[in-house]
């Protein structure tokens, strides 16, 4: 007797075209926004805009500026932009750079002061203050906590990589200061080495390395997962956003129980051959099918628009899609059986679903969260569903590897449905 209930629900949904459209368009819209923001342009990561004022204009300061300019994560600005009123671009000064930070044009500005090149590098606190260079000023907007730290770190890196000859010269000076003067022969060897180093500095930089010098520790980066796929993050957001909207749709759809109880239709249905278990099972099947259809439409959208590799992962998608759909449908049934009115259902479902989505990774990847929150996230449907879809689409794992997610989601669906059935006894008899 489940099928007649499913059939009635399908007809009712088909009639409410606005609800039908919203249940598909809304999640697709949100998914697209997230996909475009976070996943669609991975090759063009946003750069930190940095104003650099080189008051010193020495070899060391130019080398430092050059190093910063060639760093892939920075967009170095040294002159004001050309204005429409034909004001010509002008080099930034100490005051105009500070004004630009205050105005919010950039978050960070570096002022390389006069005299920097005379003694650009100092080792340790015992350096002679009289011989130390005036410090570089880093002007920042306190509302941006990340950019100043990034720039400060990159500055240290560039000191090491962009101006090795300066570093070596400084090292020689310290050596002579603490060990005594070089002999003429030693001096000649040092000068030869420094000349070779300067020639190396003048070579054009390799792409992406930031400078011609490879750094103190040689590092070669190689992504072993998620690098070769087209839009690997798309699947993450399809699952993440999808589960959140599935939860909303499922709770709204399960709310039809409350409408039917209020109108007396539920009484009439239960006076027919259909009992409460059959009625709830029918609604569970319908809500599962609805949720699975929503997920399918969303992933098809991801395939069509964001080049998500859906068709190579059909078995994994089917397994995860159906398990996720069952779990969210049962969750919706539980909410509907807990609440007494539609208004209650709206408030409770919004609170619970947003909380679950926040800690379960639908809004923000769980691996970026504190460990305690990551553990708490394991109590949500979102986390297990997202983990499963990530295994399928990102890590290319076989369907058999999905067993933890399948077990948890199926068990969640069964347990929540059982609780919903128990709570629904209040409608059964009076």
């Amino acid at each position, binding site marked *: 007797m489940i099928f*007649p209930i499913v*059939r*009635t629900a399908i007809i009712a949904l088909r009639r409410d075209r606005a609800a039908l459209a919203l249940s598909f368009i809304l999640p697709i819209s949100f998914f697209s926004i997230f996909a475009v923001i976070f996943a669609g342009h991975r090759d063009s990561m946003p750069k930190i805009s940095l104003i650099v004022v080189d008051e010193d204009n020495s070899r060391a300061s130019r080398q430092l500026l050059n190093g910063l300019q060639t760093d892939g994560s920075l967009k170095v600005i040294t002159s004001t932009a050309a204005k429409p009123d034909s004001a010509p671009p002008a080099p930034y000064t100490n005051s105009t750079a500070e004004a630009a930070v205050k105005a919010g044009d950039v978050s960070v500005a570096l002022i390389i002061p006069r005299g920097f090149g005379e003694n650009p590098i100092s080792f340790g606190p015992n350096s002679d203050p009289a011989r130390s260079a005036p410090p570089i000023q880093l002007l920042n907007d306190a509302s941006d906590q990340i950019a100043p730290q990034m720039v400060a770190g990159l500055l240290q890196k560039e000191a090491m990589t962009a101006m090795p000859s300066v570093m070596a010269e400084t090292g020689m000076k310290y050596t002579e200061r603490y060990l005594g003067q070089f002999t003429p022969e030693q001096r000649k060897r040092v000068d030869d080495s420094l000349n070779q180093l300067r020639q190396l500095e003048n070579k054009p930089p390799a792409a992406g390395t930031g400078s011609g010098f490879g750094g103190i520790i040689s590092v070669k980066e190689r992504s072993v997962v998620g690098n070769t796929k087209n839009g690997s993050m798309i699947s993450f957001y399809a699952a993440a956003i999808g589960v959140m909207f599935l939860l909303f749709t499922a709770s709204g759809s399960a709310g039809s129980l409350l409408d039917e109880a209020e109108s*007396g239709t539920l009484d009439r*249905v239960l*006076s027919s*051959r259909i009992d409460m278990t059959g009625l709830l099972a029918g609604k569970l099947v319908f809500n599962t099918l609805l949720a699975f259809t929503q997920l399918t439409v969303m992933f098809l959208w991801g395939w069509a628009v964001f080049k998500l590799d859906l068709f190579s992962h059909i078995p994994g998608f089917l397994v995860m899609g159906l398990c996720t759909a069952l779990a969210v449908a049962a969750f919706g049934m539980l909410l509907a059986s807990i609440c007494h009115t539609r208004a209650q259902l709206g408030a409770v479902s919004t609170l619970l679903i947003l909380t679950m989505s926040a800690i379960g990774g639908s809004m923000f990847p769980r691996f970026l969260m504190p460990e305690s929150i990551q553990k708490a996230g394991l109590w949500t449907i979102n986390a297990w569903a997202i983990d499963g879809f990530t295994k399928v689409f990102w890590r290319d794992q076989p369907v058999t590897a999905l067993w933890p997610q399948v077990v948890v989601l199926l068990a969640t669906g069964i347990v929540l449905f059982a609780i919903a059935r128990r709570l629904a006894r209040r409608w059964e*008899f*009076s």
Partner: protein
Amino acid sequence: MVQEAHIPGTAHLPGPSETVAPAAAPPLQVDSLVKRFGQVTAVDGISLDLRAGECLGLLGPNGAGKTTLIRAIAGRVIPDSGRVAVFGASAGSSAARAALGWIPQEIALYPPLTAKENLRAFGRYNGMSGKSLNESVAWCLNWAALEDRAGELVRNLSGGMKRRLNMAAGLIHHPRLVLMDEPTVGVDPQSRNRIFEMIEALRAQGMTVIYTTHYMEEAERLCDRIAIVDHGRIIALDTKEALVRASFAERSQVMARFAGPAEAVSAWVANRGGRMTGSTAELSAEFSVDRPTEIASLLDEAAAAGFEIVDVSLRRPNLESVFLHLTGRELRD
């Protein structure tokens, strides 16, 4: 006009009497039924037997316990004590549910579905399919005079049409006993008449019906026997004529309206064996007389006491009079 043809497929309906109860089991037996909701006793020891093919009216004011009794018969209320048997099967059992058609007071339909889709849905819920379902849907639409609105969404139907469809949905599975819980609530007089015609068409086919109402004229028109329900009890159960005779014998009622000081009028009416009715400002009273000719002496005595009777009428007692007589309250209190 309302359909007079027999309900299709009735002969093939697997009724409860074939599977559970002996063929001679009466349509309904209610034995010492008690149902309490907290401190309130909604049904207080009701016993009732229904004969095959009769229409029993449950007449009583709102809150008398009629709907709780109906819901208990439909198996939707678990009694605290007592027993309900439908064609010998316990209320709520699958056999009882198959034999019962319940027409609830509320419009218990799916608003987004059409009239036809609603009937088909409830038919399927009752295990029907194929040709028998199609025939039954057609019969119901014809019976409710909704054939030309079959494709209309329920939410777009008028109040009277919804009521008629609500009734039809309760008959879609060819029940042998129909429970109608105030089916004319909130409908205009024209729609009410149409509903009466529908019920009379069913009655003509020998359908057994329980009809609850707080409109005595409906009970008088439609029902063979009438149970007067008050405070969860059946305080009288018989034909209309027998009920009136039991309360009033052959006496008639005289309704009079007075002009004069209220306290003095009330005292005189009580002394004369009558009772004040209506609001205090109206100064209306009711008297019981053996013969209509007693009106003349009533008028003379009022005039002698110094009161003017501005309006007087004679009427035979009806169910409302019986209810008033038995409970001391108006039926629509």
